């Protein structure tokens, strides 16, 4: 199957809502149908080809080119195929995703992978906040799947996530893992304030020291074998987690006892 390519003609002045751009939809559509699919430019109903050059049809591989940081909801609820963006994307990328892969070479906005239930998202640049989070009012954020961000990330990463894995290469801002109910967040470069606030369950790993809240209690140093499993899974994505006893150990902090929660924050201490 040759990919469908979408090239942005001109940057939209206000955000463009393009939830129609998913492999699930395009795999059954002819080139003309793709061109005429509905996008919202502010309150206006527009055709996709008002904004994009479109080539290809009937494929679940989509390639997008251009500065798409004002294009929202790409890959929403997708369950198959691949969406590859050469450039930056806007908010809600892969929200409610159920499967398939998304790769972004540039930066991404807030709410990527929000409430996703499966699939894989890799953003090579920086991302915004609320990665894999629950939308306002919802009880649960991402339920499964993996999100990898090469650069930095914003506020409330993994807020109320239930399962799944988030890895962030750069520094993360405040309230990482807020009200987290399960799953794993890996912080390669640490985070700012109040990491793990209100966490009920789940694991936050940090390779850098973290400012911890007083409601997290220190509970020893160790080299748990589950880290080896994680390391094995993440290695193909170019992420290496240390765990060898000769290299150091993880110090475990449990909390957030103001809930009281059964979560844990593991911080790497090099030998």
């Amino acid at each position, binding site marked *: 199957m040759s990919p469908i390519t979408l090239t942005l003609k001109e940057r939209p002045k206000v955000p463009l809502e393009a939830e129609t751009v998913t492999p699930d939809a395009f795999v059954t559509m002819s080139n003309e149908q793709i061109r005429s699919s509905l996008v919202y430019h502010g309150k206006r109903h527009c055709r996709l080809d008002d904004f994009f050059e479109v080539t290809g049809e009937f494929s679940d591989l989509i390639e997008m080119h251009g500065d798409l940081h004002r294009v929202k909801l790409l890959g929403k609820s997708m369950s198959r195929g691949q969406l590859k963006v050469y450039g930056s994307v806007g908010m809600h990328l892969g929200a409610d995703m159920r499967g398939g892969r998304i790769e972004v070479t540039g930066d991404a906005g807030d709410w990527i992978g929000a409430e996703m239930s499966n699939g894989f998202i890799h953003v090579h640049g920086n991302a915004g906040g609320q990665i894999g989070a629950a*939308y*306002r*009012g*919802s*009880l649960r954020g991402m339920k499964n799947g993996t999100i990898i961000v090469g650069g930095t990330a914003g506020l409330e990463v993994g807020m109320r996530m239930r399962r799944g894995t988030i890895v962030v290469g750069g520094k993360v801002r405040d309230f990482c893992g807020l009200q987290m109910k399960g799953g794993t967040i890996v912080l390669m470069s640490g985070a700012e304030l109040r990491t793990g606030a209100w966490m009920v369950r789940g694991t936050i790993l940090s390779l850098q020291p973290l400012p911890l809240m007083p409601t997290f209690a220190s509970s020893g140093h160790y080299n748990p074998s589950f880290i080896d499993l994680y390391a094995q899974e993440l290695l193909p994505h170019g992420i290496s987690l240390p765990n060898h006893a000769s290299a150091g150990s993880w110090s475990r902090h449990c909390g957030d006892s103001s809930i009281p929660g059964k979560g844990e924050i593991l911080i790497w201490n090099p030998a």
Partner: protein
Amino acid sequence: MIRITGGKIFDPANGINGQVRDLCIDGGKFVSSVIGGRTIDAAGMIIFPGGVDVHTHVAGGSINFARAMTPEDHRRTTAFIRTQSRRSGLGGMAPTTFATGYLYAGMGWTTVNEAAVPVLSARHTHEEMRDIPILDKTSCVLMANNEIFLDLLEAGEFERAKDVIAWHVWAAKAYGVKAVNPGGVAAWKWGKDAKQLTDPIEGYNSITPGTIIGRLAQIIDELGLPHPMHLHCNNLGAPGNVWTTLETMKLLEGRRAHIAHLQYHAYGGDDWDTMRSASAEVAEYFNTHTNMTTDAGAVLFGDTVTITADGPWQHLLYKLTGRKWGNLDVENETGCGIVPYTYRPSNLVNSIQWAVGLELLLLINDPWRIFLSTDHPNGACFWRYPEIIQLLMSYDFRKDCMTKLSPIARERITLPDIDREYTLYEIATITSAGPARALGLTQKGSLGIGADADVVIYEEEKDIAKMFSHPRYVLKGGEVVIEDGDIRATPEGREFIVKPSFDPEIESFLKPKFEDVYTMSFENYPVEMERLEHADIRECINGQAPSPPRTAEKEPDRADEGVEF
């Protein structure tokens, strides 16, 4: 002018059970004959009087708070898109005002009673009720935890307390009086609750919940309000609360009362692990005491949001679920708690609650005294009533549903042993004629000459839930509002209110209290008549207590063979 021909009429208020008759409508009322006008051919169809909901929460501060607290539900709900004749809105767990009207009418309900209005938010409630199209509305004002009233009872000033109640009913432009967890919400201001009817209430020396219940029922009878005291008993939702409920019912002997959402008050056992259904005990007592009416407050499995003036209970529910919690304090009058909730068949307590609601509807043998309700949105949303109707009309369907319950749950309930199936005549009684009579709305719940022409016409079919969810026609006040699943017209509804008599001097007693303790000035407190659109002042039955609810009339033989459900 409309003539409806050939339909099978189910009109319990006039003892008509499935006879084929023509209905004639002129000027919004049923008349004996019309010449000309539209004819609706209802041959083979089933005709009910428009539904009446005796206990629901559709307008005011608490439901509005619930709407604000549940954005996640709004996202997954199908929206009403604005058209020429219809406003936009959202359904779901706590529907918006306009959508509430569309959804109720779409199901064939034409009158609702908003069951809990604090006087302080009565103005807000009336504004919202104005925005609920099609339906006629009544409301009950919360009085059982009002500080001024409780202080007067403590001081033994009964006559003045009566004037205070009457003044507040008129100030709130209400139709009836609601008592929620009498004394308990007042005690909640001290972080306490009132679980024993004979113990003095926190913050008072002598008065007990029992005092409040007895006195309030007496006042309402003496004022001659058309609807009796609308009582949410103490100890709602707690295992073993059947004793409180039975004690309360004994206290009410010789008085009229409507016991709201009885399902939440009929549990046995000592704690959550040993909780069991006590509907048989409650039904046995209720069946032999005809001074009371009740509504089921049935529970259905699924998501909803619970809202009640019972603040202490909601705090407990929040502690039990760990979900969201909202609490409102309404100054000296009452409070309110809001907690979103999911009823699950895998949960023992929820399974028992589900069964108890149905058991009460099936074990209480007089359909004129128990009415269909879910205490919307507490037990389930009102738009799920057709599911309950199906459960009541089909023993086999109930058996199927019971397979979802755990064996432990099935041992704690009596539902598997009850094979009663409701007839259409009984359904028409519990959804329309009965609640209309309990509310004292003589022109509602009837297809007789002179009654309001609120009619719902169903196409008879075997899938009961489908039949009751999608009426073919709904007429409100003689106007076709629903036809073939479409909203055809959205007339504004009326509001029924009462003006009980009181000594005007009571204002000089009340005014200084407002200046001392209320945030609102006395002059701004009562709701002005101009705030109400299409208000209809109903007569009080002055000088004598209205007669207790009429009891079982034997169901007349059904005139036709009908579909076997």
